[in-house]
């Protein structure tokens, strides 16, 4: 019997990035639901996803953190990936390597945008324990 496809929620205010991520994640064999804003994402969350990939800077600079917090509050078992183009050169440096960071960043993985699609596939499979 065929196992049902896992559902991945992708949230990003950049329509091109959203299109590409959907393209890649679907090619891994998942179902994808997309949202272009925090508000849209909250509507989409009515259906519990199996995993969420969130952009960090959307309407506000920390929209991704806030959304991650909300997802974890409602669905503590759903893995959350935060993806961002903003990194160390601006002094904004996050990672989830320490317990201390994990305490306030409610995400399971922090990714830089531009990651290769096979790496992305590996990270998603790891988080979904596939």
């Amino acid at each position, binding site marked *: 019997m065929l196992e049902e496809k896992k559902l991945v929620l992708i949230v990003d205010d*950049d329509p*091109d*990035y959203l299109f*590409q991520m959907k393209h890649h994640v679907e090619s891994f064999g998942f179902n994808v639901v997309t949202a272009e*804003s925090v508000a849209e994402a909250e509507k989409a969350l009515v259906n519990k996803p199996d995993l969420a990939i969130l952009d960090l800077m959307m309407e506000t600079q920390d929209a991704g953190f806030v959304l991650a917090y909300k997802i974890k509050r409602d669905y503590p078992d759903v893995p959350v990936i935060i993806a961002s*183009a903003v990194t160390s050169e*601006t*002094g*904004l440096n996050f990672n989830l390597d320490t317990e201390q960071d994990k*305490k306030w960043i409610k995400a399971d993985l922090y990714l830089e945008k531009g990651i290769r699609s096979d790496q992305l596939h590996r990270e998603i499979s790891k988080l979904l324990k596939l």
Partner: protein
Amino acid sequence: MEKLKVLVVDDEPGIRSGVVRILKNYTIGFPFMEEDFSFDIIEAETGEIALEIIENEGADIVLLDNKLPGIQGIDVLEKISKMRIDTAVMMITSYASLDIAVKATNFGAYNFVPKPFTPDELKSSIENISKHLFLKRMTSAMKEEGKQIRFQFLSVLSHELKSPLNAIEGYLKIMEEKQVGENIDDYMSMIDRSMVRIKGMRNLIIDMLDLTRLESGKKKRKLHEVEIHQLATLAIDTIKPMAIQHNITIKPDIDESIVMEADHDELEIIFNNLLSNAVKYNRDGGEVRISIQKINNVVTLTVSDTGIGISDDDLPKLFEEFSRIKNSDTRNISGTGLGLSITKKMVELYNGTITVDSKPNFGTTFTVKMPI
């Protein structure tokens, strides 16, 4: 140990004592803070008492029940929001009504805790709100030092520059690996989107150059007698192709005799920015009116459109760098978020002012006044 003052407003003594019990010995530490937070809890059984306490001794966090014997929680929230103090309010509601939730969010409630809540739910809400409060205070401290602006500018700039690069690179990778097959036609939309992003990036670079030249003051200003009518006609011709695409009529009303001592390029940027906004944020089939008159030695330029307009909430952000008003109407409109900020700076070079008047769904009017 830093203490945060928590005010619990609820007419049920059980809830109040519950909150006291849960938070009495609770502390929170964040990696970015030197000291832990602990909590002092004050109780109020009505909204009236709560407001008195907030006025007299202040509070950092207010846990506010909506159903109160006298004035309702939502009214207390409204009054707090009018005091303009940095008190974070969390609404406690027994049954979430959408109407109250919307109102509360508009008055700046930080979040909601459904009643009944478990100790863990309360603690995690308090943890979140404390972090919010701490960050907010830290940001305002940074703002005072002027650090905030540069930091924000850099991180936003990096974001704005890297996003299009990532998008284009992503499309190229898909093409490189021929991920949707051998037929080039299947890649056309990706090529089109890449072109759009490249164009957006080019505009951003042009705007950035304008802005840096302005800020460093290095750009040599060449002041000449400029015939305003001629310059305006040039700006109108520049925007015409885009206006035709969207079936927008441009109606000029320009005093042909105005001559102004100015830098031609600077005025051109002002005219181009205002006109291109009036076309971009218009509706198909709409209208743009541009009027330039001289009244008492002041050149007054007004550009009005019949477009989507700007809400009162968004107006204050309009002239800030990289502030783009994001909503479903503006989603497909490209822009760098710098145009108006540059325009304002240019106008100020002429000791002028720029003002805006807008009505959502009806249109926007920008008025520039420059003394000569």
